[in-house]
Structure formats: C-alpha cells, structure tokens
C-alpha cells in the first residue's frame, strides 16, 4: 500500500437507475487492469458486470448493495464504491457518501437530469461531497450532452461547465475534444484502451474555442493567477486552469462536466485523469467526530497515520467466511493484531484479518491507514459503529436515517425456514438501518419494515436465495400514525386503595398539537403539588402511551403535553401511581383532543413520453394524488406529485400497462398528512373487525 495520502481518492459513482454507472465502473476496472475482460450488465455472456456481486443484482440488472473496490490509475489509488440507483435503497447511497471524499455524478445524455439524480444530488449536498459529472451514453439516439449541462445548471443549480465537447453524437460518436489541452481524443483498440491524440477537427474548432472561453471564464473565479493571465492575454497553461477548477470543485462551487460512452469505450480514461486531478484526496477534506466526553462537541480529525485511530464501519456483508465489515479509517493506522474499541458497545475488539475488496474478491493486507477504505473479518458490530483506539471516546456524526413507511408480515414455511429467516433478518437489520423487524405481540407474526415495496421485496428474495428461508408474505401495511387536532384539558386522579399498599396520584394540565416533532413534555407544576421526584414518572407514563394510540393503536405523534397541577399522598404516592395517573390523564385528554389518523404521503415523480402525460396524470388522480406540476422536456414530460402510500401498491404494473412500458417512476417519503374522512371511516371499520376477530 502506498504512503502518499495525496494520491488516494475515495470516490462514489452515483446516478439515476439505468444511467450506466455499473458499466462505467466495469470499464474503469478494465482500464486500471483490475479485471481483464469486460462483461456487461444484462450482457449476453451471462457473467454480468464485475461490480454486481449479488446474484439477484445480476438477474435484475440493477445494483442493490454497494460493492467496494480499489484500483490504481497513473500512480494514484482509487477506492470506488458502486452505489445503487433506485430510490428505495438510498440509505446505501447515503452511507457511501458519508465515507467518500468525492463523487462522479453519472447522467444519461438522453434522459438528462432525472428525478433520482435530484435525490442523489441533494444527498451529495447534505454531506458536502465535491463532484464531477460524467454524461454517459453519448452514442445513444437522442444524445444531447449540452442540454444535460443546461439541466445541471437549471434543475440542480450546479455551476456546470463543459470540460469536453463530443466528436460526433449518437452512432457517429467517436471521441471528445479536451477543452483544457485543446486536443481531440480518440479511443482505439478492441476495448478503446489506446488513447490517440489528434488535432481538433476543423468543424469543431469554433465551438471548442467558444466552450473553452466559457470554461476559462468560469474557472477564473477561483484563481487570481488565472484572472491575471487572462487580463494579460497570456497563454493559459493546462495546470493553471486545472488548479483553478479543482479549487472551485472542492468548494462545490463548480462542477466540471465530462462526457463519453462507457458502453462504447469512449472517454473513460480522461474521466479517470479528472478523478486524480480534480477530486479531493482525504487530506483535502475536513472530517469531524463527536466527543462523547464533552457533550458531543465536534472534533476535527487529522489524516495523520500516527494519531489514535478513529474509523467508521459503514457497511456489513455476510460472506462465506463470516461477517465482513467495511471500514473507513479517518485518523491513525489500523494494524493486524491491534485492539480497537467499538464506541457504541464499549467492547474491545482485536483486528484479525484485514482485507481490501475488489467486488467479491479480496486481497489480504496488514495495515489500513487514515484515508483508506478496507474491510475487517470476524468483528461483531452494526453498520454505523465507530471504532477507536482504547482511551478515545469519539463517535462519527450519526447518519441521517429515515423512519420506515411500510411493513409486511413474513411467515416461514417450516422450522428450518424459521431458523434461517431469523439469521437473515438479524443480518439485514444490522446491514441496513432503514430495514427493521419485530414480532407483533398480538398476532405473533414477524413484521419487516422498510422504505418501499421494492425495498422489502428485495429482502424477501434475499432471504430465499441467500439463506434458503422459504417464507410467504402478507399484504403490505402502511405505517399510519395518530395525532390530535385541538387543545384539550385533563385532570385525572389515580386512586387504588383495595388490598396491600395504596396508590394515589393526580395529574392535571393540557395537551395540544405539536407542529414539529413527535412529543414534547413541559412541567409547569408549582408549589410541589406533584413532588419533583415524581415528575419523571409522569413523563414516562405519558411517553408509554405514545407507542399505541388510544384511537386505533397506531403510534402517536405531534403531541405537546403540559402539566400544571396535581396532588400526591404522603404514603400512597409512588412512581408507579404517577405513571398510572399520567396514562389515565393521557386517555382522558386524548379523547377530547379530536384525535385523527395520519398517513404517509410519498413524493412520486413519473417520467413519461408526452403522449402518455394525460394517462399518467389520470393514474395519479385516481390514487388521491395531488399533482404539483409537470415539466416539459422535449419528447418527455416529468409529472411531480404527492400520493398517499396506501394507494401506491402495484402502481408499477398500472403505469406500465397505461404507458406501454415507456414511463418510469420513483417514489420517496415526503410527509405525514391527515387521512380524509372516508378513508378514516374505512380504517376504523377494518380496525373494529380485526379487534373482533382477535377477541
């Protein structure tokens, strides 16, 4: 392993589904000689792309889990995380971005900036990941990279600048003109491995000059030296221009845009050059940890290999040799045989086998330095755990994890399946924080929860394939919530004096809707009418009521409770009595506070050819959806809407049949909203029936 940290790149490749990011990764691995043959996703040779390591991914032609790999390009080490494109799996994307220093945003030159690109871009912004863009599929019919650059500016607000212009498009796509060196680049050989430099074709000279001027102009914002050179009309050296672009890109104030066709082996090598030249090394990025000894005060970490270790487990995988934990080291050096501490559990862990991953193959290594990504064997931990040197008490900032919105009952076919299912569920919930599982107390069923239909479907499939757990599934269930809609007073006395020690407690106050947040408790009791030592018990009593709402047993959210009076008894009052009094008070107030049911509303974005726009809007309208707007993109149209999750089951089939399979959609959680009266009545009816059948 090399030592110069400035020659290390940890990058992600993020994009909309089907933009060709797995194909691009495949080509990168080929040109960096990590693989010696190219197999395409959905290819005819049946081998599948190297990065799609899971069987299921090969079959579906999509990438589900991030596979980490590393390669070398012109004396630089590049660690790549291939990230999934479907919105259902965005936790994977989020995790990757959390540990990466830079990213390539892959866009399709025909489809342009699509809905998922917007989500991915928001995530990059959240984690301040500098990026360069690659406009892929320039060989496809309808390719228009300059339009995509315009969309990067308009739709995503990037200060996007072309670094290249294409030499021919669609079937005539031959190569690119590099606007920095002002040379034409062609890619010869069976797999485009030989880069041939030529003069710019005469027909493109004028356009190249104009675009270069735009590029130089945009870059000059980040370099006084470059501005000076422009003003003095000097020749602009490529390094001067690239330095300025790098400075802008690191601040996320400029997005250099490259283009080509990974599938046709065009212009992948210049993109790799840009990864080395423009994207940050671990030294360029400031990472922060939280000091648990000082109220989680942020602490800047140094990419110093001699400092104490701080590292983050960002992904777990279950392989044939046990649990594989993907790790990013932020500070210090992890050595085989060293001891580190898992901050969450406080357990000391010995570093056994240390490996570097290449898709589903691995290479043993002895040390892992700050800035690098590798994997550990045989360490029991959860995804998102921080490992540090003994004596440190730092944790990496927690990752943003959304709550699940959909659940499904899974029933194992037999005992063997039951055992395997438990193993699988245990693993999945450790790997993916948005995937949760529990046993329903009343029905005894195992319930899995996640971010969408496809998210859960994939886990059910994986249970079957990887763990041989034959399971059947119930109907998907929506994660409804209860809340209150008006202020209501309560004044409840809990009194029990039959046999044994008595119980006494009175709790008075009011509850009201809380706009932001799940629950807030405020104590305004004066004069000790509820003794201070029982206030915590009162709060606990209220909190315990939130898990199952009195209306229809859905979790309660958006409630503020203030207590302002009460009473106690010198002998009969206890924590238990006040908890019971709080429960009584909650039920008393809740009934008066006009409780209602909330349902998850999803942001649904459909991309459709214009001729089907009417039908698409119809399907949304029939599903209680609100159409926010439509965006015309030439022959395509994007319909943005908000639709209740309960109405979205089976939507992919409906959309396919009403648009001849030409439209696609993405869906993600947007907000919780009150259900209409008719739906509330329907839910109440179902609830009453279920209650009756249990009884």
């Amino acid at each position, binding site marked *: 392993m090399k030592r110069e940290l400035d020659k290390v790149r940890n990058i992600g490749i993020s994009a909309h589904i089907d933009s060709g990011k797995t194909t691009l990764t495949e080509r990168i691995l080929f040109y960096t000689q990590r693989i010696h043959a190219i197999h395409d996703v959905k290819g005819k040779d049946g081998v599948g792309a190297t990065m799609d390591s899971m069987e299921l991914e090969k079959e579906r032609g999509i990438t589900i889990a991030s596979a980490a790999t590393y390669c070398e390009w012109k004396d630089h080490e590049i660690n790549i995380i291939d990230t999934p494109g479907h919105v259902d799996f965005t936790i994977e994307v989020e995790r990757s971005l959390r540990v990466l220093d830079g990213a390539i945003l892959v866009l399709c030159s025909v489809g342009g900036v699509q809905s998922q690109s917007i989500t991915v871009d928001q995530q990059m912004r959240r984690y301040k990941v500098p990026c360069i863009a690659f406009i892929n599929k320039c060989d496809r019919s309808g390719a228009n990279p300059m339009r995509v650059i315009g969309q990067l500016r308009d*739709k995503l607000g990037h200060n996007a600048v072309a670094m290249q212009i294409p030499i021919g498009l669609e079937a005539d796509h031959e190569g690119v003109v590099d606007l920095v060196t002002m040379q034409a680049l062609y890619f010869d050989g069976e797999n485009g491995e030989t880069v041939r430099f030529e003069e710019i074709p005469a027909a493109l000279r004028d356009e190249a000059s104009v675009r270069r001027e735009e590029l130089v102009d945009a870059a000059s914002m980040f370099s006084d030296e470059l501005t000076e050179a422009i003003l003095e009309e000097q020749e602009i050296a490529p390094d001067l221009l690239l330095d300025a672009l790098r400075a802008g890109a690191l601040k996320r104030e400029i997005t250099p845009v490259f283009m080509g066709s990974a599938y046709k082996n065009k212009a992948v090598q210049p993109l790799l050059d840009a990864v080395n030249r423009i994207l940050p090394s671990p030294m360029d990025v400031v990472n922060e940890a939280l000091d648990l000894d000082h109220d989680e005060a942020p602490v800047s970490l140094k990419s110093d290999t001699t400092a104490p270790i701080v590292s983050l487990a960002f992904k777990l995988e279950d392989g044939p040799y046990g649990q594989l934990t993907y790790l990013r080291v932020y500070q210090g050096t992890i050595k085989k045989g060293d001891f580190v501490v898992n901050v969450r559990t406080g357990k000391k862990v010995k570093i056994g086998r240390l490996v570097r991953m290449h898709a589903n193959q691995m290479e043993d290594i002895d040390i892992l330095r700050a800035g690098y990504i590798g994997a550990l064997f045989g360490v029991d931990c959860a995804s998102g755990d921080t490992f540090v040197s003994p004596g440190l008490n730092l944790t990496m900032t927690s990752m943003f994890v959304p709550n699940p919105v959909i659940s499904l009952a899974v029933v194992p076919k037999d005992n063997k399946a039951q055992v395997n299912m438990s193993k699988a569920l245990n693993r999945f919930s450790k790997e993916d924080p948005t995937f949760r599982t529990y046993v329903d107390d009343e029905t005894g069923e195992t319930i899995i929860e996640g971010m969408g239909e496809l998210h859960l479907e994939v886990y059910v499939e994986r249970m079957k394939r990887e763990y041989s757990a034959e399971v059947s599934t119930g109907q998907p269930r929506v994660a409804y919530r209860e809340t209150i809609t008006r202020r209501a007073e309560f004044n409840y006395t809990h009194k029990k004096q039959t046999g044994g020690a008595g119980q006494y407690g009175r709790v008075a106050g009011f509850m009201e809707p809380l706009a932001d947040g799940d629950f807030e408790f405020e104590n305004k009791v004066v004069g000790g009418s509820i003794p201070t030592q029982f206030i915590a018990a009162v709060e606990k009593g209220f909190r315990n009521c939130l898990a199952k709402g009195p209306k229809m047993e859905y979790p309660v959210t958006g409630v503020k409770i203030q207590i302002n009076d009460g009473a106690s008894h010198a002998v009969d009052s206890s924590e238990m009595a006040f908890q019971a009094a709080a429960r009584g008070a909650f039920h008393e107030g809740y009934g008066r506070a006009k409780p209602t049911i909330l349902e998850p509303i999803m942001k649904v974005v459909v991309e459709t050819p214009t001729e089907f726009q*009417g039908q698409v*809007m119809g399907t949304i309208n029939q599903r209680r959806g*609100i159409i926010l707007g439509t965006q015309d993109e030439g022959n395509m149209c994007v319909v943005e809407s908000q639709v209740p999750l309960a109405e979205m089951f089976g939507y992919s089939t409906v959309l396919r049949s009403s648009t001849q399979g030409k439209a696609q959609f993405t869906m993600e959680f947007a907000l919780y909203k009150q259900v209409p009266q008719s739906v509330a009545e329907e839910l109440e009816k179902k609830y009453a029936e279920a209650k009756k059948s249990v009884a």
Partner: protein
Amino acid sequence: MLKNELIMRNPLRILGNDTDDLIPAGGCGAVVSRAGVGKTSLLVQIALNSMLRDQQVLHISIDDPVRKVNLWYKEMLQDLADRYQVQQINELWERVLPYRFIMAFHVDGFSVPRLRERLEELREQDIFTPQVLLIDGLPLDDERREMLAEVKVLATDMRMHVWFSILSHRHEEPAADGLPLQLAGVADRFDVILQLQPEGKDIFVRALKGPRTGEAQPTLQLDPTTMLIKTAS
C-alpha cells in the same frame, strides 16, 4: 378563518374594483418590470390570493423548474403568514396546495395549441379546471406577440383570466403613451397593467392601466426584504 384573515388583509385587494379579481374572466393583466425587481413574487401573491379564495390557479413557468416555482409559493405564503402572525402554516399550505398546478416549459417548447391540449386533458379527466392562468417568463418578442391574441381566445373559451409577467429593459425609453416599449401595439389586449418601479431602496407598484390609475390609485410597494406587497408607509 385563517384564509379569510389573509384575504381581508391582503393589500392587493385595494387595487381591485368592486370584485376581488382585478380582471374579469377572459381578461388579461400584465406585471411589467426590469429583471430582478419582483415580477414573479407579485404574480405568486396574486395566485395565492386566488387560491385562498378557492380559485384554481395554473402557473406556467418558462424555464424555471417546478421545484423552484413551488419554493416561491411556499416562501411567499410563509412570509405572508409571518407578517399577519397566522399560525398553523402547514395546515394552510396543505389546504391551498390542491388549488395550484404548475406547468414548466422550455421557451421553445411553449405554444398555445400545446397548452390548450394539456388543459383539455386536465378538464376532461376532472383533474384541474383553472380559473386563473399565470404565464411567467415568456419573452414578448416580435414573434410571440401574436401569442397574446391566441391566449386571449383560450382564456375566453375556458373562462379564465390571465396574468403575464413582462420584462422591460433599463436602457429603453418608454413609448409616447408612457407604456414600456414591450407593450407597444399590444397594450389594448390588457385590461390591467401593473408596473414595478424601483426608486432608491423602494419598489413601487403602479397601475399604468386598470380600474384605478393616476392620482386615484393608492400607493403600493413591495417590501424589499420579503417582496410582499404593502401599502406605502
């Protein structure tokens, strides 16, 4: 209740005649100003005022994406609610949202026949039947002036009234009738023309054509921090 409060307090009403709408169905209005002075924010306020009165508003945006337009509405409503200390803004937002539909077009992709086709689809399926149409960002150059007549026919057929935003240029002197050059020859197509005029730190809203012009009109301004319309202090 909340809605009524906001409607009553909206200074935009002052510009109106006997009715709440400045222009009748089938009529056209224009907001004219230089770039960056506040045309879109005034249009969005006109839209919000209509939405609060349960009128369906179709907002056509030329070149700005749906997300950006949506943000305009969200922020303007928030500012409006803040100014009048109206609580429960989320609830209000949810209530007015179904009254708005945004269509974003690229300038070259926008045409009146295309718009008519879209509108007919929306009406046929009973998805949306706009009473107010806003067209924001359409450059009124020579080749597009003819569109005004087509839009007017569409508005009459569909019983909507239409508001345009029109960009004027700093370097151009007004025409002899005092109207911006962009309106030369087409001013008669508009029932109301409002001009946004920056003077020092203030932006004044002046009616160049409409029910109350000249001395008769009240002094209205755009608050430079929120871009909300207000009576001059």
